[in-house]
């Protein structure tokens, strides 16, 4: 008999500020040494579930609770948060925000300092843990000098330093590029195997999280447990889709080909999948697919020619970048964090000036234009809508760009109303912005840029941190804008799904160089490119190869095109 380390007994929880309970009648057992994945859409209650495990509920977030949660047999209500934190180590989602110390070593030592561990012991322990998570060379670095992946390793070290029994990860992949995310999952897996710690991962990016095997997947939907089964069993069901969680792409492709997945086919990971049973059907399906339509675009609207930039003379952030954008296109600029994507958009918007090279808009050089003047042609939507919104009412926020340009009031009203209708915000025009959801706020920021009628709109990570439902909502909206207003869209992203599903062309930047400029499908099936750009080869490629299809690129495109015409968003 295995020891039960986390146990929810008929547990119901309602936050003090809410009317309805967030969790209903949860019964759940997690055993010692298990590795469990908790998935579910935003607002399903999966974060609340994790807050019960680490004791933030009921100690920080108060509310009414029924039933009980037992950690190592003790009720969370009777154990102090301090004692619980010695058993449960939580790695939060925000890799930047949870970094407390001024240097890596201090951050790892933080919990030990609070436990009054003597200094010499502390130094030994920090060295040891830093070695395990491979940040030993960075002990003296400050958080600003680390990459996203390294920061997350430091956060892991910071909780592992106390010999916790349970490691709890809250959306560990949210802020990482695909390749770094893959490495993070591999590291979690290694720690799990080597230390026999119980690992609980909360994540909605299921395919990436399943890069390493998990014992069980628990699906949370509307505050209840909708499924609790092994990955292999889960892939054969349609509960994920119904709950609004994205299935792994190869699973969707198999289902599209009309295949019923059985648990004994081990579809939990692409590597274990018994593909031989299906290869024939997949091939037949592929040959039946029509040739995807080749989109047509207008003339060239923006061209970047031999652009180079460096902050100081020693290292070039961008080196000889050239690319063309055609009117009406939806394209992606991809690459790992720090590759130079944001620098490129800063150069286009005029926040920075290039060392050499030229940017042309409709054929003429834009270097004489001020930031404000460029803003009328090229709009920038920031990643986090809270970083843009400066008014309290929707109408005022959208009108701001026209007011500062001295447009007459009647015209402002007319144009704002028109944009609000396009953006589906007209019914809310007199609402305070604080009452809106994240996705709606994003719409407001897009509307506030659209009002200036730019020819080109640059969206920085439009869907970062969003679950499948919100991702679809935002991207369908963006696509709609593109179709209705003909605005050219450039998206800076490291979301592979986004580039596959919503763009027809991707430009890859790695270490300041232009690495590739091609269709998303061919980039995500090219190992050389995806490795250098810290992308991850799509599982559709592996599926195609395993089924004996040579044209993996074509297969990927065929499936995406199939998805676009079928079952969008549900």
């Amino acid at each position, binding site marked *: 008999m295995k020891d039960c380390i986390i146990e929810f007994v008929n547990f119901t929880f309602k936050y003090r500020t809410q009317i309805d309970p967030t969790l209903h009648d949860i019964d759940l057992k997690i055993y010692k040494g298990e590795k469990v994945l908790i998935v579910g859409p935003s607002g399903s209650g999966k974060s609340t579930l994790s807050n019960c495990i680490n004791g*933030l509920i009921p100690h920080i977030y108060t509310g009414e609770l029924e039933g009980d949660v037992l950690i190592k047999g003790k009720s969370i209500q009777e154990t102090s948060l301090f004692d619980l934190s010695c058993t449960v180590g939580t790695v939060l989602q925000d890799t930047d925000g949870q970094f407390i*110390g*001024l240097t890596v*070593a201090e951050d790892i030592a933080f919990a030990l300092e609070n*436990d009054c561990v003597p200094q010499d012991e502390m130094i030994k322990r920090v060295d040891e843990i830093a070695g395990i998570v491979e940040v030993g060379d960075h002990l003296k670095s400050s958080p600003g000098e680390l990459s996203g992946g390294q920061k997350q390793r430091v956060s892991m070290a910071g909780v592992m330093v106390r010999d916790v029994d349970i490691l709890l990860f809250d959306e560990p992949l949210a802020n990482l590029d695909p390749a770094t995310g893959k490495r993070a999952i591999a590291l979690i897996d290694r720690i799990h195997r080597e230390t026999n710690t119980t690992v609980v991962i909360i994540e909605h990016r299921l395919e990436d999280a399943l890069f390493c095997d998990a014992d069980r997947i628990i699906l949370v939907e509307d505050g209840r447990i909708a499924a609790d089964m092994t990955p292999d069993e889960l892939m054969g069901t349609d509960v994920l889709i119904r709950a609004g969680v994205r299935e792994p792409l190869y699973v969707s492709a198999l289902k599209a080909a009309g295949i019923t997945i059985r648990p004994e086919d081990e579809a939990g990971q692409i590597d274990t999948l018994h593909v031989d049973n299906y290869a024939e059907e997949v091939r037949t399906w592929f040959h039946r697919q029509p040739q995807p339509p080749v989109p047509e675009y207008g003339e060239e609207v923006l061209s970047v020619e031999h652009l180079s930039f460096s902050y100081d003379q020693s290292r070039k952030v961008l080196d000889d970048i050239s690319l063309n954008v055609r009117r009406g296109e939806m394209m992606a600029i991809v690459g790992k964090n720090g590759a130079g994507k944001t620098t490129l958009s800063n150069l286009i*918007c005029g926040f920075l000036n290039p060392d050499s090279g030229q940017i042309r808009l409709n054929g003429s050089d834009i270097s004489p234009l001020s930031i*404000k003047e460029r803003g009328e042609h090229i709009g920038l939507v920031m990643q986090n809508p*809270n*970083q843009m919104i*400066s008014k309290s009412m929707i109408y005022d926020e959208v009108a701001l760009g026209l007011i500062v340009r001295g447009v007459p009031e009647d015209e402002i009203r007319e144009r704002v109303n028109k944009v609000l209708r396009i953006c589906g915000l007209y019914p809310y025009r007199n609402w305070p912005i604080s009452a809106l959801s994240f996705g709606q706020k994003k719409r407001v920021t897009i509307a506030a840029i659209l009002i200036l009628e730019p020819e080109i709109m640059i969206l920085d990570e439009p869907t970062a941190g969003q679950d499948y439902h919100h991702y679809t909502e935002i991207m369908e909206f963006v696509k709609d804008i593109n179709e209705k207003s003909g605005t050219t869209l450039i998206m800076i992203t490291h979301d592979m799904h986004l580039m596959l599903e919503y763009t027809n062309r991707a430009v890859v930047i790695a270490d300041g160089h232009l690495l590739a400029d091609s269709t998303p499908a061919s980039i995500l099936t090219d190992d050389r490119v995806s490795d250098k750009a810290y992308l991850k080869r799509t599982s559709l490629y592996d599926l195609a190869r395993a089924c004996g299809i040579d044209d993996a690129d074509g297969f990927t495109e065929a499936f995406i095109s199939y998805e676009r015409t079928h079952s969008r968003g549900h």
Partner: protein
Amino acid sequence: MERKLLAYEEKNTWIDRLCGVTKLIFFLCWSVTSMMTYDTRVLIIMLVLSLVIFKISRTRWDQVGSVFKFILFFLIINIIAIYLFSPAEGVKIYGTETILCGSGRYALRAEQLFYEANIILKYFTVVPSIFIFIVTTNPSEFAASMNRVGISYNAGYAVAIALRYIPDIQADFRKIRNAQMARGIEMSRKGKLVDRIKSTTAIIFPLVFSSMGRIDTISTAMELRSFGKNKKRTWYMARPLKRNDYLVIAFSVLFMIIALVVTYADGSRFYNPFI
């Protein structure tokens, strides 16, 4: 990248190697002495020592230059204001009146010049020590040092966290400002003052909101790692006091005592060359 103003930079001089707490004690003693004394002899000795230490610490001008200019600006205002409001303050203090030129209320008096020269001296003795303290003390040691001299670690940590977040908030600020400028909100010197003041709200609101999110995350992260569990805590970066530390502390205290004794020996904190 951006030039780092008043930022710690490791230069590996013996001043760098001193403990944060030693430097804090030196800085406190030095400031107290300089604030108390108007004894020109003491001030001149302090000024010379300040400059010598400043040289030894290898603090570069670009680390402190613009802040120094800022302080200089206030010094000048201060000096002018004293003269405007109290042109015969020196006469009151030193008890003699030596008019150098002019007449009436704003006559230029030797005593006044001497008095104001002393004030300038005081500025110049303290300012280098502030700079040295800031640019040679590893920020990680601030909190530990403050805790050592008896300030609660909560307060110490608040300072450390603030230091930790300055670069992040600066980066946020730049991003927000750029995006708002692209929307057409004028922030450059070209705009009218009123417009510029109005437009800063377009940065402040988003900045405050995004910073609130940060505060939330950091306090959760600290809570989950037992911050505040015990009355005391240990410090990873704490350093034991070494021979040099004791020497500097002893010197600081001794210097303060001697300087104050010399200053007050004749019953007044002013040195009077006029009698």
